[in-house]
């Protein structure tokens, strides 16, 4: 019994951290969804499908999944030059959208966990702030 109590406590603390993270992600995604319809949907489209050869997809994008840091940088500062997304080369430009760090984190959380995408870590405002040009 004596041994069970600490285990129980650890479990409670653990799961509440987990639940907390979970609801934090949900809240962030909710805000991110609004940012998405406001700033991104005109090019990357409603389901993140993009337009082949013109606007790269975000849904199941290997770039977004594997290059998290570069993706945050792209949303924060804009992106220009050649990139390859799911085997297709894009060589155009996305302008600086003027988002605040928290908004970049929110929209990253939304696109990284929508349309079949999943991410195991939540993007925070602090992380975005630490990424420089």
């Amino acid at each position, binding site marked *: 019994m004596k041994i069970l109590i600490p285990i129980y406590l650890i479990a409670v603390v653990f799961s509440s951290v987990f639940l907390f993270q979970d609801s934090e992600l949900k809240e962030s995604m909710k805000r991110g969804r609004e940012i998405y319809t406001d700033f991104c949907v*005109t090019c990357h489209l409603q389901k993140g499908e993009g337009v082949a050869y*013109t606007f790269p997809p975000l849904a199941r994008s290997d770039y977004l999944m594997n290059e998290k840091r570069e993706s945050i940088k792209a949303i924060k500062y804009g992106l*220009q030059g050649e990139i390859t997304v799911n085997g297709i080369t894009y060589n*155009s*430009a996305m*302008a600086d*959208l003027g988002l605040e760090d928290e908004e970049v984190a929110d929209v990253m959380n939304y696109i990284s966990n929508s349309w079949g995408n999943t991410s195991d870590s939540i993007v925070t405002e602090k992380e975005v702030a630490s990424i420089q040009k």
Partner: protein
Amino acid sequence: MLSLYLFVITLNLSCAQDFENKVITPENVPFMAELFIDELQIPWGFAFLPDSSVLITEKSGELIHFSNGKKLIIGNTPEVYQRGQGGLLDVKLHPNYGENGWLYLSYTSEEGDAKGGNTAIMRAKLKDNALVENQLLYKAGPNTTKGQHFGSRITFDREGYLYFSVGDRGARDDNPQDVTRDCGKIYRLMDDGSVPKDNPFVGKDGAKTAIYSYGHRNPQGLITHPGTGEIWDHEHGPRGGDEINIIKKGANFGWPLITYGINYSGTRITEKKEMEGMEQPLHYWVPSIAPSGMAFVTSNKYTDWKGSLLVGSLAFQYLERLVMDGTKVISREKLMEGEGRVRDVREGPDGLIYVAIEGKGIYKLVPKND
């Protein structure tokens, strides 16, 4: 007889566009596209000075003077609110620029107390590679952090009135139908920014008296018809339902109560495409081409193009030529496909067509039969 007449009229009214005219890609075009000014990011607007040099607005905030093959950055330009579709937007010369030197700019400004920004119109003169005598003529309010629908095209009519557009700023249920609020409107001012006494909402309680017409979504094309002197606009609809309209004093163009488009998510905004007291478009595009920039061809440089309307497409990345018969669209052509997002198109003083493409620069359409 009268009832038949009425019936025909109603038919005409209820049918803004009697067929879904398809866009075709012509086999032969009367021009070769030559890159005239290279290495531009988002050339939002441009204007030709009397010496044929060019002023270009970059969305990022730079005003560029292209003269003798060189680019100079103009100093003392306004501070722009860089967010979403905002930035330094259109540039237009006063009709009597040669005498008075006034040039007009639209941009997004943070001026005011609230967080965010909104569309502003200013005028200034160019001296020693800098703007001087800068005057703010209009600043739409309230500020908002929304990133879309700034409108911002500028034109002058034959009497010298200044017109400009401001989009709905992403607040379609608050702004476009309310003339006591800015946004979702076409405005008319005197060239010095004062409100003409005969503007349609002068004397109406609480109205923004600079408003000339309302119920617009996001007009990024605004020009004066070279033949009739009327003001024509085109505006981004939601998904589907981009429109061309002839602007009328005090008229309601219906957004968001009537539209040919639907939400990006596929849900309906309204069932209605028409309503009494609201204007029908002269043309609508389904699907949306995302129109930006607009010019009539007035020269004889390109075989049978005279009288055609040219419109840029951001979404499908081409230049569209609409063959017109008065106010009727006869057919549509896709030109310069795949070059990039076409942001602006103008006819130069040499009668040639110039096309601004994002990520590329400004192209000159050199006539093939020249």
